[in-house]
């Protein structure tokens, strides 16, 4: 169930009805007044798990070929004294901590590179 707006004596559903009854110009004005709405709309998922699964499954053959046609075994040593099976059994926080420990690079200590005026800019 949607939460009631905390500072207004109306529900979110009532606001939605009002928005649907607005003119296009008023809806545009609302977006200008509440730009977070526009940002939220842009952040809607564009990729489903099913679509991702199709894409990744198609890549499985290349992975297997890379491994010489033999699946990885959970008993194989991976990193930091852990086998693949032991790594997989770690919680997400434990995996994150392990990566932090292995990273050994502080971005703030790296040298900055000079970029020329003709470099491509982000669009």
């Amino acid at each position: 169930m949607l939460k009631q707006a905390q500072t207004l004596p109306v529900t979110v559903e009532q606001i939605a009805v009002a928005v649907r009854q607005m003119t296009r110009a008023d809806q545009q004005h609302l977006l200008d007044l509440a730009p977070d709405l526009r940002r939220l709309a842009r952040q809607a998922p564009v990729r489903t798990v099913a679509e991702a699964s199709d894409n990744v499954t198609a890549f499985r053959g290349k992975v297997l070929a890379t491994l010489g046609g033999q699946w990885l075994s959970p008993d194989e040593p991976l990193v930091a004294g852990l086998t693949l099976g032991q790594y997989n059994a770690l919680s997400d926080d434990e995996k994150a901590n392990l990566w932090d420990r292995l990273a050994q690079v502080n971005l703030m200590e790296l040298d900055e590179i000079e970029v020329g005026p003709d470099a491509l800019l982000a669009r």
Partner: protein
Amino acid sequence: MRCLLDKVTARLAVQGLLQLGEGQALADEELLALDLALRASRPPHHLFIVPPTASVLHQFAEQPRFSPIIQLFLAHVEVLRPAHYFKRWARRLRELGFTREDAAVLALSTFGTDSGSTFLGIEVVATYDQAMTNNWMMQRDKIQKRLSAMQRHLLAPYCHARLPQVLRPEQAVIK
């Protein structure tokens, strides 16, 4: 389009790759992270990781059995390097409440380049860090003002550097 996987998203993509290598099913976040890695590394797009991720992956690759699969991932990505003004911008972002690591990743996305210095900045940061994403979204206007204020004193191309979109992997549009 240039897309950066933050450390967690890169880790999830690599874990997905290892799961594939075991013939196992992937968790949803691993699946979506690996899917983005595959989509965003196809020409004309470019996929990037941060230097700490590259450091971890090189250690994974020391095991002969895992080396081919890690090299396969590394063949799809480039390492984003700090360009001039990266540190200054990271300090400004710290003042806006971002953690040290988040500020560094976000600053790198605006003032980052490749080893050949062919570009400045990337368009998308893919992350599952909801706290960072929320802070970015809520303060986007203030962040833009801080960047513009800093850029008034910079020469090209730095004065034209832009803020990225900060998105979950499944939200990234790759055309």
